């Protein structure tokens, strides 16, 4: 059989695409549920506060410590009589945006460092990765505490703080990915056709590391929300009167026996949101698993 005979035949059999990553993700029921949860939570934080009869900062001393489901305040009030629901949702805006922004910044730093170190290696790469190792040696709380002393607590600085302490894992991950991908045949092929470093890095390698990066990004959001609550718990968090889940929880500690809902509600919100992101990350990991994609 000659070459000319085979084209059509060869063309006939095209592999079906197989279930898309999206469908694989949707099949991960908990992840899909979590995505819905996070989306509704985000939407609620954006849409609902203006619709509520109470503002999150309005102090009403007469209404302090109203329990949930007992009066006009659906989730009760705090020690200054502010509406817990309004605060919870406004806090959600802050906590979620802290989570996302910190994630974005830490991803940029982590990817840049990891990409450089993974691609070029060499002395600078080694130094970068040793720096990453050194940063990872610290218990994260130390870094949070110590660096927080530099900053005037504000939403922006908390974001920077969290980003500054959470990019290392990403750098490590990206470095390992890039280093592994660099040795793969398609990267060699790119070099064989004369592609320059930039093209190899950004067009060939990085897109193939997207899956673990996306997963890490999701988990980083979860991490950032938790970190915000830890910083607040240690007293270095977002300043009042701006509510965040972390500082709501912090303020509730001394009322644990008299008004437990003040601690339970934001704590549950944190747990819920973080669990959500963790599950999404898990689902993404399954959906974007390179092993499933290889063939």
């Amino acid at each position: 059989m000659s070459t000319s005979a085979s084209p059509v035949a060869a063309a006939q059999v095209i592999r079906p695409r197989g279930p898309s990553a999206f469908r694989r993700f949707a099949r991960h029921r908990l992840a899909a549920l979590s995505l819905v949860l996070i989306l509704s939570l985000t939407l609620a934080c954006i849409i609902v506060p203006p619709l509520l009869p109470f503002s999150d900062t309005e102090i009403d001393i007469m209404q302090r410590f109203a329990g949930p489901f007992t009066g006009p305040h659906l989730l009760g009030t705090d020690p200054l009589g502010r509406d817990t629901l309004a605060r919870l949702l406004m806090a959600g805006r802050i906590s979620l945006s802290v989570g996302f922004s910190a994630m974005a910044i830490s991803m940029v730093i982590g990817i840049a460092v990891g990409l450089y170190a993974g691609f070029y290696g060499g002395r600078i790469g080694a130094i970068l990765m040793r720096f990453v190792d050194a940063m990872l040696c610290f218990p994260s709380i130390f870094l949070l505490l110590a660096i927080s002393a530099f900053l005037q607590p504000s939403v922006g600085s908390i974001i920077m703080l969290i980003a500054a302490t959470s990019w290392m894992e990403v750098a490590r991950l990206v470095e390992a990915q890039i280093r592994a991908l660099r040795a793969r045949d398609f990267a060699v092929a790119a070099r064989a056709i004369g592609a320059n470093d930039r093209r190899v890095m950004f067009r060939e390698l990085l897109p193939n590391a997207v899956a673990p990066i996306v997963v890490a990004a999701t988990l980083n959001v979860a991490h950032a929300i938790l970190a915000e609550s830890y910083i607040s718990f240690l007293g270095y968090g977002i300043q009042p009167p701006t509510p965040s889940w972390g500082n709501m929880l912090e303020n509730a500690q001394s009322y644990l026996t008299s008004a437990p809902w003040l601690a339970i509600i934001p704590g549950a919100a944190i747990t819920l949101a973080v669990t959500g992101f963790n599950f999404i990350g898990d689902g993404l990991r399954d959906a974007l698993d390179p092993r499933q994609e290889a063939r």
Partner: protein
Amino acid sequence: MEDGTVLDVRNFSVNFGILPAVRDVSFTLRPGETLALVGESGSGKSVTSLGILKLTPPVPFCRIEGQALLRTRKGAVVDLVQASAEEMRGLRGREAAMIFQEPMTSLNPVHPVGAQVGEALRFHQGLSKRAALAQAAELLDLVGIPDARRRLGAFPHELSGGMRQRVMIALALACEPVLLIADEPTTALDVTIQAQILELLQRLQQKTRMAVLFITHNLGVVAEIADRVMVMYAGRVVEQAPVRRLFHAPLMPYTRGLLRSVPRPDFSGAEQPPLEAIPGSVPDPLAPPPGCSFSPRCGHFSPGLCDSVAPPLTHAEPGHLVRCARWADVAGAA
């Protein structure tokens, strides 16, 4: 079950959920006989071999149907498909053993090879640790591992690929099984090592009179080792014949294509004869073509005949089975 057969497989099917990996496979195997199971990747040959010993990967909804009758050393006949997990445990290793394609990964990296070889002996024959090790040393010696006694404590990573495959063979033959299933045992090896292993297997088979089901995709290996050959395509047996017959007078177009696509360099003339390839590729098992699954690639394709019903396996001659609606025409054309 016929007397004198070791294994009688009838209407054997393996399904992974909705995916039929192996459909309606039947064959028999006599002591001392080697049956080669040939096919390309995805043809179902490995699943067949694993399915017989129920070693298919732990995928949910894996269904095995049909019969696989095994005659044990003591003459009892057991249907492996129906056997309980407990019964299977008693049979595997003792009556039917298996060697695998990847000698690199098929041995447990954290145990010394001696212990791994001796393990089946200890379990099936109740040997003590010391006795099992002593026998393991003999087995390693038997499969041609130099300085076998010293190698008992070696870990798999300390051995070369060929040596590891020898260990696998020793491990499989420990309890002198009546049936050995060899699933592409030489594919991962270099040609010179492949030659060593094939020679070893043939020598051992002559010695033990065990029946061997040899799975491979390499027709050269088949020609060397097999008594009979069974060709599989897309989960089905498409042709079965004694080895000479299959190589000299194949009836199924797929078999013919396969044989012709092997390059046979000819140094008598100036130019090499053209190589004939089978066009296209193996169908997607989830969306098989209607009728004969080889029909889209077949040069003898006849519309209406080949793409309507799957042809049955027919006796073209005694001992020669073929699954093709047009086998008679094909034979004539050749």
